[in-house]
């Protein structure tokens, strides 16, 4: 039936962006294609055989760690999850554009880790933290946050978000990844902290205008906009922009 594993079935013209923050260009490599090959295989083949100094991040090769993010023919994807067979005889791989380039396909994503530090961590009720009894939670309550906790931090959503990518408003908006993170905390059955002031302020949820691009590129199929960002916007609005409450506040003499 199928070919023996090591026989190349065809050749691929793989164009990889090579260079650093100062300069760079697309370089073409001829790669023998084997059945079932993914883009990461081809890139690592080039590294092992043609360009040992080709910089690329990868780890699990199974779409579980979110290391090998890149823009493949212009679309943000995980290289380990993108079969060569989806393309013709040629494919172009570039680094993520929203982050400063280090070298070749490797970008400086450290900003994301700084943002994460600013989000107040999981905080349970004092009583819950001191009880010696194991917690009880129902599956349906847990299910609400499961989706958000699937995030593998590939940062493809951050890459495609126009607020970060085109307008570079990293100081004003945390980006979709961290909306998902905040949602996973806010909707955790045992979390009691109120992160709405953060959402309105430094996290800048208002900057999202719901184009849903992040949702489209998420390799974990998290409904980032529908299930995380929109409910967070609603929570924030309830607290700050509810017209009836605004009137009540005015009557009381508050702002």
């Amino acid at each position, binding site marked *: 039936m*199928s070919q023996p*594993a*090591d026989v190349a079935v065809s050749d691929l013209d793989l164009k990889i962006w090579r260079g650093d923050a100062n300069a760079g260009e697309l370089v073409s490599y001829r790669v023998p294609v*084997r*059945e*079932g*090959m*993914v883009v990461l*295989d081809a890139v690592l083949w080039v*590294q*092992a*055989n043609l*360009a*040992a*100094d080709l*910089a*690329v*991040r*990868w*780890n*699990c*090769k*199974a*779409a*579980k*760690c*979110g*290391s090998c993010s890149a823009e493949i023919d212009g679309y943000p994807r995980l290289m380990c*999850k993108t*079969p060569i067979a989806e393309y013709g005889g040629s494919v172009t791989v570039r680094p993520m554009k929203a982050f400063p380039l*280090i*070298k*070749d396909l*490797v970008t400086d*994503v*450290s900003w994301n*880790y700084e943002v*994460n*530090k600013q989000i107040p*961590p*999981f905080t*349970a009720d004092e009583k*819950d*933290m001191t009880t010696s009894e*194991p*917690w*009880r*939670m*129902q*599956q349906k309550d*847990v299910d609400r946050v*499961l989706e958000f*906790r*699937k995030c*593998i*931090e590939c940062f493809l959503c951050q890459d495609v978000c126009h607020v970060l990518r085109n307008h570079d408003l990293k100081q004003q908006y945390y980006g979709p990844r961290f909306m998902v993170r905040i949602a996973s*905390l806010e909707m*955790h059955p*045992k*979390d009691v902290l109120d992160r709405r002031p953060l959402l309105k302020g430094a996290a800048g949820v208002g900057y999202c205008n719901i184009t849903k691009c992040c949702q489209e590129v998420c390799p974990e199929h998290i409904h980032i906009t529908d299930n995380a960002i929109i409910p967070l916007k609603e929570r924030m609005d309830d607290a700050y922009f509810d017209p009836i409450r605004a009137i009540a506040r005015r009557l009381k003499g508050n702002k």
Partner: protein
Amino acid sequence: MSPTSYETVETDVLVIGAGGAGLRAAIAAAEGGASVLVVCKSLLGKAHTVMAEGGVAAAMHNVAYQDSWEVHFADTMKGGKLINDWQMAELHARESPERVLELERWGAVFDRTWQGRIHQRPFGAHTYPRLAHIGDRTGLELIRTLQDRAVHTKGVDVHMETTVFKLLKTDGKISGAVAYRRADGSLLLYRCRALILASGGAGKMYRVTSNSWESTGDGTAMAYDAGAELRDMEMVQFHPTGMVWPAGVRGILVTEGVRGEGGVLRNKEGERFMERYDHERMELSSRDVVARAINSEVLAGRGSPHGGAFLDITHRKPDYIRTKLPSMYEQFLKLANVDITKQPMEVAPTIHYAMGGVRVDAETGAATVPGLYAAGEVASGLHGANRLGGNSLSDLLVFGKRAGDAAAEFVKAGSAPAAEVDGGEVDAAVATLMAPLDRHGGESPFKLMAEIQDTLSRYAPIVREGGELQAGLDQILAIAERAKTCGTGGSSTKAFNPGWHTAYDIRSMLVNAEALFRSAIERKESRGAHARSDFPKLDDELGKVNFIAYHTDGGMKVRAEKISEMPEYLREAVQHSYARYTPEERE
């Protein structure tokens, strides 16, 4: 060479590795009052722990009320063929429930029972359903929880994408380490009072592996160089079920959770062959048995088209499969074009885990060098000759915490400031690291790595043989000679140069490979993951010893060391448990 220039960073406790063990150790050490620096080769949250799928083993008896730490202890000991460090196995079985519940209080979310407790699923060679899990991505939940806890713990700092390549000692005690930043090759000198290795295994030594580029055995190699002893290095685990097709995905893990949820193994004739290998536990036998069974079926000509077996879960409802095994569903659909709710998966053994590693003290994780600690896969003892699924995540939590606690104590006890490091030693290590950059005609490190992988795959496969092990050792020693003069594969840049990085990584792999072959030659019996065609039976005398690899001026030596007697109450726990011994192949 010009004088070495480097940035010096001081910390009380240096943790190498940011997987589950490293992060748990960092949290514990910081809570113990020490300043902690975690150094990792990848980005934070990408370590191997993230790939653990099935769950974390802890006798919480939420699903089977009969479960207890004694049964978990007995399962672990019997699975490890009784060469485990029984003290570690006891601590592990007693403390893992507490560690899991603690994780939940830090925000981890697990699947629930109908009463709202943490749900536990059955797994290979565990007598009762024991694995706390969340779908099939428990490792991700664990690492994300620990990661967030660690970065929000006062006193913990992290250096990402930094490779430590040398441990430093002063007056026989650990005093620091030298590292380079992967992005630009700049050097860092860490000065510390205690150092915790949590750097994982060496699965990259094999060609078909579930491990990433990171698993090159750096921790074991550096500890060995620093004079620490290694234990059970012959014991490496083949996970029975890795993907086999297409070629590009060969080796990627298929969680044991598939079998835990009822998946059955069949050969090409449709026979449920585990019947012949372990008719009581069937697919949920221990990993060594299932891996050898698939191997035997393939050798007998009853394998699947691409040289494996069929793993079938289609008798479960599609919705159930998608809920309980979401990432497996996705992985096969995307990478192999197989819908596992409708078709069987094709699977074959893949290298997965090193039971052996740095020899540690059970209670503290202390290695045989003062100030040096190890936890997780890089350490040895808990798993003996074979690890049970789910016991690695609990291992990380229990012994990560213990190592962190002990390191903080060690720092407190030794009030003297961090000792001066030996400049000459640093310069020599840096010179070795940099040398490949200047060897323009040197061999490609990627080529040498491929040769190491071929050697291990060919001479230390699932079933080994004395003559082949010797041939493998000779070959590894020959490659080690060539590695001394290898280049970087062409480029002399220090800016994110994987060729240069690999030139160092293969040195670590070679130490691990040599220890594996030398120990495997000595163990003239079949026990757990170590099966030999020339000694197919258990040898009761060898069941009383561990093999210790250690450094001498004349090179690596291996000696047998007697395992201490188990106390009466533990012997009873083993004898009276329902846990079954793995049936041996005794032809």
